[in-house]
């Protein structure tokens, strides 16, 4: 390993995770902290911590100049950005290169290309990866009608220029198309001065499937299997699992191959995730986006493959070739990850920072907990509310599900509100156990009255 000292430009559990991976490889660590994180677990574990700015992340963890200067000033030869904050900021990758610091991630060019959704879609299509059927040049009703006929209903209409949900219209019946087109086009013209619409197929019964990629600097690209992240609330993942036991193998093979083809096509380096949407009604899959970073849910893949992804990231960044071959990659058993957040689910997931008075993790050989929390830790109000990731493995999905439900009962946090009660209720649902879910399922069950009454609010703590 040619890296000697790594700068950790992140906080929370991922900072702890990176520090531990570095130490396992004999690499020294310096961790960036904001004024609010001076006493964090990552700061205590690292060889050194450096205060890069005030509590507010825009003046600390999101400050490219401060992060790079701190890395250079502490003699680090590499920088790991973790996830979130600056992890997918091409300017950070550029600044690192300029200052002679190895950026642990893809090349700046790749981050830039994949960060631009239109460019990423183009590159995916060029690599032969299916993209959601649609058209971006729908300027009149006749064109809208022909596109609708071509791609099939239901469809989504939105402004071609400008983002967000402005003027978005869903069309389920051809008879509704004219009204929807006129409304959406008028709103697009009012908002962006251009009435041209983007029309794409709306996939209602969808699963979110993503493929873990790792690539070295010598052209070798491997996939490490897939994860199913269908349980989401407002596009935030809640529970992730792998492998995708509920998607048929022939389709899965195509999805994995598509992810590798895209990575090869863009000469991808380091770890990344190619995200797909799977249409469960038509048994088709389409490209969503590429995340050019280590992801929150990477432990699912680590549990299945036995590969330490953060250590691999460091090796690859140091220029080492991947030792693993594709045929050696095996997904063994089933793994489920639950994100435990400091949020009050019964109060609209309101953040719940404060002092943790008691913290009891389940301890089993089939459980892994990634966290920066401990009894007495004060969760600061400035950042993401994730407290811990609970990863549970089983021989198959049924065992993993039943074990996850068991250890969620054993996990106990006091002093602040957490999403533990919400997760216990959600994972007890028969649809979750059988797998009959889609990306809209969490929000659907939450709107049912019996769900909110069924214990996602306060209840007696389980003592281990």
């Amino acid at each position, binding site marked *: 390993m040619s890296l000697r000292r790594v700068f950790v430009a992140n906080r929370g559990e991922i900072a702890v995770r990176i520090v531990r991976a570095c130490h396992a490889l004999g690499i020294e660590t310096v961790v960036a902290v904001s004024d609010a994180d001076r006493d964090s677990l990552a700061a205590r574990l690292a*060889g050194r911590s*450096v*205060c890069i700015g005030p509590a507010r992340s825009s003046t600390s963890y999101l400050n490219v100049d401060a992060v790079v200067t*701190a890395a250079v000033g502490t003699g680090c030869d590499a920088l790991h950005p973790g996830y979130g904050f600056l992890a997918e900021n091409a300017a950070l990758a550029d600044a690192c290169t300029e200052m002679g610091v190895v950026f642990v991630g893809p090349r700046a060019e790749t981050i830039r290309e994949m960060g631009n959704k239109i460019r990423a879609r183009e590159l995916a299509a060029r690599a032969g990866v299916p993209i959601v059927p649609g058209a971006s040049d729908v300027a009149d009703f006749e064109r809208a009608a022909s596109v609708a006929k071509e791609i099939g209903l239901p469809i989504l209409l939105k402004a071609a220029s400008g983002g967000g949900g402005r003027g978005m219209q869903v069309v389920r019946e051809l008879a509704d198309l004219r009204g929807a087109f006129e409304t959406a086009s008028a709103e697009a013209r009012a908002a962006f001065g251009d009435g041209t619409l983007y029309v794409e197929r709306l996939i209602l019964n969808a699963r979110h499937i993503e493929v873990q990629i790792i690539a070295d600097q010598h052209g070798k690209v491997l996939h490490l299997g897939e994860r199913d992240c269908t349980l989401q609330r407002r596009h935030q993942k809640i529970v992730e699992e792998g492998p995708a036991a509920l998607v048929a193998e022939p389709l899965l093979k195509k999805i994995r191959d598509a992810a590798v083809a895209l990575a090869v096509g863009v000469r991808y380096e380091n770890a990344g995730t190619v995200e797909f949407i799977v249409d469960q009604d038509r048994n088709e899959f389409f490209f969503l986006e590429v995340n050019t970073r280590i992801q929150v849910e990477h432990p699912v893949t680590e549990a299945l493959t036995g590969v330490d992804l953060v250590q691999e990231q460091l090796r690859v960044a140091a220029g080492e070739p991947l030792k693993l071959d594709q045929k050696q990659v095996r997904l063994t058993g089933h793994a489920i990850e639950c994100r435990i957040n400091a949020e009050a689910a019964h109060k609209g997931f309101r953040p719940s920072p404060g002092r943790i008075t008691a913290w009891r993790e389940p301890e089993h050989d089939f459980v892994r907990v990634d966290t920066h929390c401990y009894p007495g830790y004060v969760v600061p109000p400035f950042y993401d509310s994730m407290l811990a990731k609970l990863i549970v493995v089983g021989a198959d999905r049924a065992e993993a599900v039943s074990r996850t439900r068991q250890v969620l009962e054993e996990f106990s946090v006091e002093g602040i509100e957490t999403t533990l009660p919400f997760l216990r209720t959600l994972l007890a649902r028969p649809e979750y156990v059988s797998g009959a879910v889609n990306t809209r399922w969490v929000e659907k069950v939450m709107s049912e009255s019996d769900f909110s009454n069924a214990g996602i609010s306060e209840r007696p703590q389980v003592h281990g």
Partner: protein
Amino acid sequence: MAQDLTQADMSEILSAFERSDFACLDLAIGSVRLAVTRPSVAEEGALDIPPDAAVVTAPLLGFFQSSDGGGESALVGPGSEIQADSTIGFIRVMQKRFPVKAGKSGTVVRVLVEDRQLVEYGQALLEIRPAGGDEA
């Protein structure tokens, strides 16, 4: 073909390193690689500043610059009288340079950091005796 380092060789190299002014050493001979770093040279937190001392702290992280440029002498030193709006040095971050204002008036007792040293956000740069204090 180079021979691998023995335990004795390594001890000798390490003692030489300890006596030197070098901050790090990275040596590869044969299959053995020896990489040593002095515990963070820039980490000068060990300076004992009385807890009630008046200090001027770094408003941002960067490299401290004690003078206005190459060859110039330091803007302040022990005994310097400073006003709230006095520039006591600069902090360099990438290509940018930010002046550091004293923020309070008094007399400099000690300069706590060295020229071109990395300073953290909030790190004490100067210990001062406030103007109009008991000792005045």
